[in-house]
């Protein structure tokens, strides 16, 4: 068995570094919450790490929720995230299944096409994407955003799910075919339910990425009623140069962080394994 570090001084130093980094990671989250309960004056009069004064300004939250229309942005973010995650899963899972289980001419090339696309910088596509969406009348629309996000998560989903389908035993499908199931029946009734862990992993990673996405949202959406949360955060940050409302800004950050944080707490292991799966190309 591993004895760890024997030297007590070294051990203490290592511990201090680890605890220090924990604080560096956790503290900004705590302070986002604390600062979301302050008014402007407290920001200028007190030190940044001072606790908010009583009464706590929970009203900052209702203020951004209604005055900054975070109710709308929150709903927009949910629609766009769920829409593109589900559509992306369906499109990725079908192709991944065929690539994993059927040999046909060009199947290898197709797989390589998706994998290689992960190496191409997406910025290159930004400008044509804007004009494409413009000509399809899909600028300033959640549908447009869903279509682009769906496409952007396909390669990752196919990559992970091909690996997943390959890891499932072939006997199940063979048995299903002996029982007279069609190709579709085998996929939808047997393989898809079996691949649930893989689907969840890919789905969660996609939810995180899409929920947090900023640049495509900024380019494709100019109409405030269609903003997602990160797009609005970017706008708010720019506005702070001439209108300072620090408390509401932090409330806005907090509202944006909380859903992904909850998701992370619930699906921690899935997220860690899913995100790293994509990196080991």
């Amino acid at each position, binding site marked *: 068995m*591993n*004895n760890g570090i024997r030297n007590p001084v070294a051990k203490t130093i290592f511990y201090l570094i680890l605890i220090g980094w924990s604080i560096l990671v956790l503290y900004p989250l705590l302070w986002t919450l604390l600062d979301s309960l302050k008014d402007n004056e407290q920001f200028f009069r007190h030190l940044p*790490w001072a606790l908010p004064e009583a009464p706590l300004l929970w009203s900052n939250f209702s203020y951004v929720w209604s005055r900054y229309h975070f109710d709308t942005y929150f709903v927009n973010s949910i629609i766009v995230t769920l829409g593109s995650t589900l559509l992306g899963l369906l499109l990725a899972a079908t192709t991944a299944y065929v690539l994993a289980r059927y040999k046909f001419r060009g199947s290898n090339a197709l797989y390589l096409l998706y994998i290689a696309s992960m190496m191409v910088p997406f*910025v*290159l*596509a930004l400008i044509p994407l804007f004009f494409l969406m413009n000509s399809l009348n899909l600028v300033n629309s959640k549908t447009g955003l869903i279509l682009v996000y769906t496409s952007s998560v396909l390669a990752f989903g196919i990559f992970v799910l091909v690996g997943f389908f390959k890891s499932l035993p072939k006997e199940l499908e063979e048995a299903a075919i002996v029982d007279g199931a069609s190709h579709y029946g085998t996929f939808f009734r047997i393989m898809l339910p079996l691949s649930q862990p893989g689907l969840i992993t890919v789905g969660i990673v996609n939810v995180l990425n899409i929920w947090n996405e900023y640049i495509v949202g900024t*380019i494709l959406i100019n109409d405030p009623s269609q903003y997602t949360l990160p797009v609005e955060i970017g706008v708010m940050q720019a506005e702070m140069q001439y209108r300072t409302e620090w408390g509401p800004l932090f409330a806005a950050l907090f509202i944006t*962080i909380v859903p992904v944080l909850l998701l992370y707490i619930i699906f921690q292991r899935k997220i860690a394994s899913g995100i790293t799966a994509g990196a080991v190309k």
Partner: protein
Amino acid sequence: MNTGSAKWQRTLFIASFIVPTLAFFSLFTIYPVAKGLYYSLFDWSGMSQDKEFIGLDNFKALFQDPIVWRAIGNDYFLVLGKIIGIMLLATFFAVSLTRFNFKLAGFMRSIFFIPNVISVVVIGVLWSFIYNPQIGFLNAFLSLFTEDKVTIAWLGFMNHTIWMLLPPAIWAGIGFYMILLIAAIQNIPASYFEAAELEGAGQWKQFRSITLPLIWEQMKVSILNIMMTTLNGSFVIVWIMTEGGPDNSTQVMGSYLYQMAFRQYHFGFAAAIGVLILVLSLITTVVLQRLLRHETVELS
């Protein structure tokens, strides 16, 4: 007859599972990328339909533009800084949290990953606040040690402001690579370490002669990944925190592309920057792969 129809059904099934995805992917990913290459050959303001074909003139203009050179420099500064900072810390954390029997190791592993699930926009805003000259953390902290209040504009230096963007980028990136390396370390058979332990090898010796060679493959993947994500995506944090300023001193290629396209409407020129990013990231991948392969030979 029967086999013929079974074959037809199989073909139909394959097509119905391949074609929709591929059509989707072609329209919203492949087509824009290809079109990006194409646009780089035109002088085009985007507003009108009259694009003028100018061949490689955008690329000539690119190399005559001092801001492009500065952006390339800044990009590679971030690549280098992030590789050094992230790899050192991520390796240190990965080893500490797997090999040293610390209590709380599992808890800390979860904590350290948190920045990776937070949006870059949010991270950019938080760090802008840390650097804020009047009410920011950094100045308030420094003021504890000085008589006068410190009011340094951390994001406003004419030179070297790009240094200020390194800490948020490293802070945000570590957790991911730490998890990658932890998985690699956990794949090493425990018997290797036990044998080393019996022979009296200390932790440092074990790290040098067992852990490091055996996780080198993952470190290589990490380094390449840091390089690629930095060249392709670091501009978001730049855009949020400085918009490339002051006076274009923190511009990176991505942010300059964004500014040229969507602020100044030089779409052809901006598309050429996109091509430049593609070419540089491919070249750098090849170069890094050669350099790192060399390293493996030395180690083994």
